[in-house]
C-alpha cells in the first residue's frame, strides 16, 4: 500500500479508532473464557459422587455442555488475542456477530416452543436481545477491510 498523507488511507482504521473494538473483544472474550471454564468444570462436577448438578440434564446433556465449554474457551481465546491486535481481527468480528445472531435466534425459537420457557422464562428473550445488540457492536466496530500494519 502506498504511503498516504496523515498515515492512513481512506477506509483504513487508525489505532485509536480500534480501541472500542479491542475493548469489546477483550470484555466479551473474558466472559466467554469464564463461561467456558464453568461449563467444563460442571461436567467434571456432574460425575463426582453424590453430585447435585444445577443444570437439569443427564450424561448426554453434560457431554455437550463440556463441548460447549471447550468451544467457548477457544472462541473467547480468539477474541482475547484480537483484543491485543485488533487491526488484524476483522474476520473474528464478523464470525462472532454471525454466531451471536444464531445464538439469539435459537433462544427466540426456544421461547416460542415453550419447553425452554418453563426452564428459563423471559431470560431467553433478554439474552437474545443482548446477543443481537452485541452482534451489531461487532459488526460496526470491527476494523475496516484495509488496515495499516506497520
Amino acid at each position, binding site marked *: 500500500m502506498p504511503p498516504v498523507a496523515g498515515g492512513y488511507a481512506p477506509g483504513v482504521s487508525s489505532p485509536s479508532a480500534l480501541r472500542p473494538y479491542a475493548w469489546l473483544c477483550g470484555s466479551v472474550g473474558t466472559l466467554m473464557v469464564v463461561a467456558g471454564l464453568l461449563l467444563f468444570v460442571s461436567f467434571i462436577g456432574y460425575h463426582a459422587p453424590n453430585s447435585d448438578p444445577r443444570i*437439569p440434564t443427564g450424561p*448426554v446433556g453434560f457431554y455437550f455442555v463440556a463441548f460447549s465449554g471447550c468451544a467457548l474457551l477457544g472462541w473467547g481465546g480468539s477474541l482475547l488475542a484480537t483484543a491485543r491486535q485488533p487491526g488484524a481481527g476483522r474476520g473474528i468480528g464478523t464470525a462472532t456477530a454471525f454466531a451471536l445472531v444464531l445464538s439469539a435466534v435459537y433462544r*427466540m425459537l426456544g*421461547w416460542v*416452543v415453550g419447553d425452554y420457557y418453563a426452564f428459563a422464562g423471559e431470560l431467553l*428473550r433478554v439474552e437474545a436481545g443482548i446477543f443481537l445488540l452485541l452482534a451489531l457492536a461487532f459488526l460496526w466496530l470491527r476494523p475496516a477491510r484495509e488496515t495499516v500494519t506497520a
Partner: protein
Amino acid sequence: MLRWLATAAIAGLLLLDLALPSLDIGRRGSEAALRSDVPHAVGRVGERLPDFTLPDLDGTPVRLADLRGHPVLITFERSVDW
C-alpha cells in the same frame, strides 16, 4: 452495503424479540395447559378428571377411581436422563 443489510436483518430480529410477548404464537409453560387449542388436552382447571389407569413404579396398574375418597396428588414430569 452488506453491512447495512446485516444491520437491517439484526434490527428486524431485535424488533421481533421485543414483540414476541404480544404475538399469539407458541406455547409458554403453564399457559399452554390453559389453552383450549392444545391437541389431546383433556379437562380444564376446575373440571373433574376422566378416569384412567396407569402403571405404578412396580408396574402394577393403578386406577384413579380406586383412589376415590383419598387425597390424590398427580404430577407430570419429563425425564431428564438424556
